């Protein structure tokens, strides 16, 4: 299944993807310093985060304005599991992702009854409630200072890099596989015309909740990995900035495409790290870029995806 998809991508523009793949695989060998690898690791994780948002919004058409809830929630869950229950980081990351998926399922059911702007408002609220809890139960969550002093995934940047790259590749293939499958046809029909989809017998709310939970799971894994890589987390992972940052990544790269969000995520990560000295101006630059993209190139800077094959749907 996955091999077939891989062939499909490579057949369409093999040279480009081989070069890109080569560049990505060999990053630890040609990177000038550790800081550069670090940017790539964070870029990979943000790309996973952006892909999870893109799966929900770009393909299913359900707006989430608070995806930081899953990212930050995954981070907190994994860190607490590791710190208080001494669960090893890989297992903690997996469990945290699972918890995010389950909470996405539980929250998705009531949430997805409302649509459009109201859904955006509602999802916007969840990370803010989470922040309230984090601030109130300071003993466990560490308030503004966050949590540190837990195990990292590995001290080697190379291992971290490959792990995050494998995660990104997995999520990317998952996205492509979903979009090319019957499920992909269904979710795109929900995005394009929900009433029509319902009238041809698609259980719309079931699929919406399913994708919501899946998206939450992916974002949770990315957040948990991020927490174990940085070795300290703060409530900023849950802030509005984070939710809006992922939206900016996806819109700059190209909403509803497979490679656009990854490109956007890397672009934002690189800007983030090269503009460290004027950190207060970063958001202004993103806002300007976002506005320019929206007005001049609304489909995004790099809206590439492998062509969708339509097959007979049973």
């Amino acid at each position, binding site marked *: 299944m996955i091999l077939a998809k891989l062939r499909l991508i490579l057949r369409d523009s093999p040279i480009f993807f081989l070069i890109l793949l080569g560049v990505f695989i060999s990053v630890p060998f040609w990177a000038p310093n550790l800081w550069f690898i670090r940017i790539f690791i964070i870029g990979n994780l943000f790309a996973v985060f952006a892909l999870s948002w893109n799966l929900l919004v770009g393909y299913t058409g359900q707006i989430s304005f608070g995806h930081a809830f899953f990212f930050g929630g995954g981070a907190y869950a994994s860190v607490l599991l590791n710190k208080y229950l001494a669960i090893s980081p890989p297992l903690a990351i997996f469990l945290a992702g699972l918890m995010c998926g389950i909470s996405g399922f539980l929250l998705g059911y009531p949430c997805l*009854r409302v649509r459009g702007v*109201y859904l955006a*408002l509602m999802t916007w609220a969840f990370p803010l*409630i989470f922040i309230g809890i984090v601030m109130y139960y300071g003993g466990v969550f560490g308030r503004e200072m966050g949590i540190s002093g837990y195990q990292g995934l590995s001290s080697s940047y190379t291992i971290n890099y490959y792990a995050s790259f494998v995660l990104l590749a997995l999520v990317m293939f998952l996205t492509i596989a979903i979009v090319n499958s019957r499920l992909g046809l269904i979710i795109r029909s929900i995005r394009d015309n929900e009433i029509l989809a319902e009238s041809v017998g698609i259980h719309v709310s079931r699929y919406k909740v399913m994708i919501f939970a899946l998206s939450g799971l992916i974002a949770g894994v990315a957040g948990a990995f991020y927490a174990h890589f940085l070795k300290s987390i703060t409530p900023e992972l849950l802030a509005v900035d984070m939710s809006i940052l992922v939206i900016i990544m996806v819109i700059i790269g190209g909403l509803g495409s497979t490679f656009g969000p990854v490109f956007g995520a890397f672009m934002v990560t690189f800007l983030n790290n090269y503009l460290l000295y004027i950190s*207060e101006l970063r958001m202004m630059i993103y806002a300007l870029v*976002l506005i320019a993209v929206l007005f001049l190139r609304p489909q995004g800077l790099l809206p590439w995806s492998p062509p969708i094959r339509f097959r007979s749907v049973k």
Partner: protein
Amino acid sequence: MEIFIFGLTLSLMYGLIAAGFALILGTSRIFDLCFGTYYMLGSYTYLVFYRVFGKIPALFVSIFIVGILAWLIHRILLYPLRTRPIVVMVVSCALAIAIAEGITLWFGTDYKYIPPMFEGSIEIFGASVTYQRLFAGMIAIFTLSLLWFYLNRTKRGLGIRALIQQSEAAQLAGIDPKNVQLTVACIGAWLAALSSVMVVPVFSLSPHIWLDATLLSFAGVVVGGLGSIGGALLAMVVIAFAETTVSFLIKEGGFFKQAVYVAIMIIVLLVRPHGFFGKKEEA
């Protein structure tokens, strides 16, 4: 008793914010997340100008500046994007964060002290109430009645109300939606800035208060119903009392301020998606 008096004055001041936001939302059907930014900027411009001009002129100058800024934001960005509500939310949220960070760059993150307009306090039924709260409440009542007069007794107000009720029909009758939307954005920003200068001395000023104000006005509009100013005002009474009660009952309840707003918002969205006083419409 303290809960009652504090809740009452707070709800009046919040009412100003919510009325402004309900106006903008009602006429243009867009969720302007920058609304809290107008609120925040109101206090910061006041902070800059009150040393130069004195208190009362600084109030007017800051309100004027914020109004112009809101007009520009709506004219350049939000009006051309008005047919895509989600994009409007994204752009205005990014802009709000950007402005908040710009303010941080200029003034720093620490809490600023804004001198109250009126000094002193008074004892009412055993509760000590500062004059600032009292006068803020009175000014809120005065402004809201001015707003009522404008909306119900003038021709432009009639146009605004027509646009809120039936957008297409109003446009057929010759009301320019662009003109009205920009005017209303200005009025909304004025109300936000005015209430900001009134409220902030009671609380504290930092660049992050934009989020509080935005959430507050959103909760008010969602509870009250889309485009219903009276509904938004009533909703503010509920929210202000809820907030005061929570902050009295729970120690360090200040952390739950935002959570209270959004919790109310979520509950209402689930129970009555079109609010309690809004008309039902296709979401």
